[in-house]
């Protein structure tokens, strides 16, 4: 599934929040990577974030 730019931003944002609150990082990150947003971006690129989007939410109601 290809994400829209809003979905991408939302996923990375949510993941960055988790990391900033102390969640274990799921990939190997270089030593100098400290910023949770950078880490989340890297995770997203590698497809390691366990988050996806629910589309057509209205159809589920």
């Amino acid at each position, binding site marked *: 599934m290809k994400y*829209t*730019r*809003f*979905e991408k*931003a*939302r*996923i990375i*944002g*949510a993941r960055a929040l988790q990391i900033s609150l102390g969640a274990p990082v799921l990939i190997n990150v270089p030593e100098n990577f400290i910023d949770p947003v950078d880490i989340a971006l890297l995770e997203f690129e590698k497809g*390691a*974030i*366990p*988050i*996806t*989007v*629910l589309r057509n*939410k209205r159809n589920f109601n």
Partner: protein
Amino acid sequence: MLTIVWKDNEKKWKQLIENLPTTYGVDFPIPEEIKPPFKAFVTMDGSNIDYAVYVKDILPKTEKPKLSRNTKGIQHVLLIEKVEEVKMHVNEIEPVGKKQGTKVQKILLINIEEEAPKIPVKFKGYDDFENAIIEILKNKKENLPESVIREIASRSKKFKLNKEDLEKVVEFTIQEYKKSSVDPHEAVGIVAAQSIGEPGTQLTLRTFHYAGVAEVNITKGLPRLIEIVDARTKPSTPTMEIYLEDDIKKDQEKVEILAKKLESTKVIDVADVEINVTEMTVTIVMDKEKMSKRRISKNQILEAIKKMKHQGTTLTEEGDSIIITLQDPSYKKLYLISEDIKNLLVSGIKGIERAIVKYEESIGEYKIYTQGSNLKSVLELEGVDHRKTYTNDIMEIYEVLGVEAARNAIIDESIKTLEEQGLSVDVRHLMLVADMMTFEGNVEAIGRHGIAGKKSSVLARAAFEITSKHLLQAGLLGESDELRGVAENIIVGQPITLGTGAVNLIYKYPEKKR
């Protein structure tokens, strides 16, 4: 469509079905509006429609029918071709006419939606280039709109592209197409509003401007834009551009005659209307010079006056004047009649005040520009090219040609208005506006009376205009708000359903590592 329903008894009806096709005498009148062949309905119990009857012809009652509904009082003989069983409840049918007589109480004039006649859809087949493009798209598992495919084909035909080049073109087109498409949840409405609003500040406020055509003035700039968006029933300066058929478009004289025919001429334009108080008459003094200029004969004026609905008037001719005498004259009546006569249309098309012939050098033909517009009547005229003739009255286009045409007119008119002022606004913004105005099937204004007033959410309506009225009404009616839109959620203080706010996250099971 109008049709009739009648009640019949089962015995007789079975007999009829067995003998089809047959003639059948009926003892009720059939309204004149109903012309054979038509489809009528028959009920057995008076509440359910049981049969549909295909009546091929109505024969005179002198004809002897094979069967009849009643032995006496036969009024029409129907030639029945086919009977079909149907299931319909009478409640679904809306009676539009009065019940016809006492004997036939069960007969109603009804309004039914006839299945639309099947018009074969003319599908323009694909030529070689178009087929090639479709083939390439299929291989790439991509898709492009029909119009884009046809456009590429017609252009590549010009340059005689070979297969490889065509493939490249298609590839680039797909890229461009994807680039120009918008992400879901993008706030297109706001972007459109600002993209039109900002250049709108630079529009002139001057209402009138003399266009290239002699003496026809057109509303321009901001007032015109407001007019378009408000979906007014009549623009302040309606105009038409009338294109002509091949056989007359190069002949100035013939075009001039046609133009004169278009111009509506009132009695007051060619004659003086005076009230003679001493003799209690209305005198119409014709002006020969004006009449010959407008090519109007005395008879035309007489004819027009005769068609008027005033009763008890007599006309007498006296040289160049017509005298109207009343049976029981009063000052008020005289005044009313003289006013009516002044505005009486002698010739021409209603609504068209002036018609100017202009030679269009770029296309090498004559065109008629008019002040005032009446698309329907003009299109019916002989010599008018109905494919190109244009009016700037959007509501008229809607009435004559339909919503899709009106949508295109909104886009064209607004872009024209903006371009005249040297502003370039992307069409897609205007297309969005036009779509919003027309998507319900009729042309609606933007704003309180149109789209904004029809929003389903109470809070959104209250946020727009007349807050208290909407809130009060919602309270009285016990309306509820689903909080789906943007304005509602801002009022409540929730994230809005746009952009990232519209994304719903869920947990994704990590894929197993292999």
